[in-house]
């Protein structure tokens, strides 16, 4: 697991209080919302705030969110692409 992907998973677990869940229990490609982790719109806001705080990356609107929140893999890619180096 890449270092960034692991940090993304740790942020998700911490921010959404998924107590008892380990990073390797989150499937890289499973959808975050709906069937996969089953997150809702309040979780989406928490993730937006967490991503900004931890990685300094802003998710500006729903269109960007739709793309970023497909899976852990797509979220990791989105952060890598937009993070200030």
């Amino acid at each position: 697991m890449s270092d960034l992907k692991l940090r993304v998973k740790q942020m998700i677990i911490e921010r959404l209080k998924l107590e008892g869940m380990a990073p390797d229990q989150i499937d890289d490609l499973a959808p975050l919302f709906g069937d996969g982790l089953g997150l809702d719109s309040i979780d989406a806001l928490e993730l937006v705030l967490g991503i900004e705080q931890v990685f300094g990356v802003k998710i500006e609107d729903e269109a960007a969110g739709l793309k970023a929140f497909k899976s852990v893999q797509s979220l990791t890619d989105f952060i890598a692409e937009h993070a200030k180096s």
Partner: protein
Amino acid sequence: MTDITAHLPHRYPFLLVDRVLEREPGLRVVAEKLVTIGEPYLQGHFEGRPLVPGVLLLEMLAQAGGFLEADSLHDAAIFLAGVQDARFKAPALPGDRLRLEVAAVGAFAGLMKVKGVVTCEGRELCTATLLVKRL
């Protein structure tokens, strides 16, 4: 700002903001609620020992938060979607001048997160994070 009813659709006995002292739409609001022994909910909460129900302190913060919106809420469909980390540290009593401070934390997809604190003469009575949804 004193024209509270022009902005909020709430009415007696459920209008729980008397005055807005400071207001930066989208950022922060400071408002006031003056508690009197005449409040209807104090008649039974509790007999002989009136104190403002904690949930109404949360409602006061939510109503104060309505002033974060630039426009009047009369035609807006805005609802409370969540309450996180609510703490009640001391009771609010008849005669108290409550200071309601609300600050925006962030927003995404029609959902806004705000932090609120109710104080009285510098003492913290209640702190909470509220989630508000615009439909």
